[in-house]
Structure formats: C-alpha cells, structure tokens
C-alpha cells in the first residue's frame, strides 16, 4: 500500500456546492435565531418592568 493512497482517497471526497450552501444557510439561520432571542429577551424585560411599575402605582393609589 502506497503512503499517498490515503491522501488520494481522502482528497477524492467531494465537497459539493450544495453542502457549502447548506453550511452557510445554517449559519444565517442560527444568527437570525440568536438575534430574535435577544430581542425577545429585551422586550420581555421591558414588559416585566412596566408591569411591576404599574403594580407599584396601583398599590400606592390603593393605600391612599
């Protein structure tokens, strides 16, 4: 067995355009997903703050 035979066997593996495209599409999808989660976290945080603010105001008014 020739030493280069391992190299030529591995070099012959095809890296198709579809594979490249799938890799890049996957990265884009994951990037968008991360952004969406980030935005969701911010909006959820904001709505929580608003909710607690109104609860405080309501409690204050109820006390009066």
């Amino acid at each position, binding site marked *: *067995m020739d*030493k*280069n*035979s*391992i*190299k*030529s*066997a*591995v*070099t*012959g*593996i*095809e*890296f*198709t355009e579809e*594979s*490249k495209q*799938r*890799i*890049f599409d*996957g*990265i884009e999808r*994951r*990037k968008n997903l991360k952004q969406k989660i980030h935005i969701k976290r911010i909006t959820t945080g904001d709505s929580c703050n608003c909710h607690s603010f109104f609860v405080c105001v309501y409690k204050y008014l109820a006390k009066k």
Partner: protein
Amino acid sequence: MLEQASVEKMFQKYGEMLYKICIVMLENTYDAEDTVQDVLIKYMTKKPLFETYEHEKAWLIRVTINLCKDKLRFYKQHPYINIETIKTTYPEDSIDNQILAILLELPSKYKEVLLLYYVEGYKCFEISKILKITESTVKKRLERGRKLLKKKLGVNECG
C-alpha cells in the same frame, strides 16, 4: 461576532479541509456539514487571536476533531444505522474507494492521526501538540492504524 467577510475568507481557505476531516471522522455528510457549521460559529463567537497561519489551522483542526468526538460520543449513547454513501470523485470500484471505506471503519483515534499525518502532512510532534497526546502515542497509533488498514485491505507486511 466577526464580520461575514472574514468568516467567508476563512471558509474558503479551510472549509474543504475541515469538511473532509469531518467526513472521515463521522462518516455522514449531514453531520459533517453541521460540525463545520459549529466550527465556523465557534470561530465567529470566540474571535481567537492567532500568531501565525499554522496556529490558526491547528486551532481549527483541534476544534473540529473535538466537535466530531462530541458527536461520536452522542451516537454511542444513541445508536443509529448509517445508510448514506459518501460522494467521491473516483469510481466506486477503484482502489481509492476501497481505502476510503476501510479508513472510515477504523476507530476514530487512528483515523485522526492518519489524517493529520498523511493528508495534512503534519509531523508526529506537531500532531502530538494538536491532539494533546504524547509523541510516542502518536507514533504507536500511526503504526497500529497502518497495520489495521493493511490487514483489512489484505496487503501483507512487505507489500
């Protein structure tokens, strides 16, 4: 996150090499694509600083092999039957195809060493640094891997 252009540049440079490592380690196209994707995402999020071109290449190879090992560990716990045939540029009845089929059957510890030595052209001490194992272990694994390959190919010691 790193800029898209730098990631694309890195992918053009090393994408094919990483993909082929993943194919040999995982024996599955989709898993190989997923792993290359994971490596690129790791590269984008970690933003590692490299001293040299060789340093960058070694980092990418190490991350790829580690992620492949993670996937293999998962499949050990969740077995499945692989029915996929890997696309190659040579005909199915060629000797290259036989060698590839036997290479894919080898244990991963032999595959990684054989890949780095014969395909990427690393020296034993460089492989030991990349895989974080001793040089003598690398030599032993190379020897055993070669022996296994020859045995499965039906080649005798002198051939």
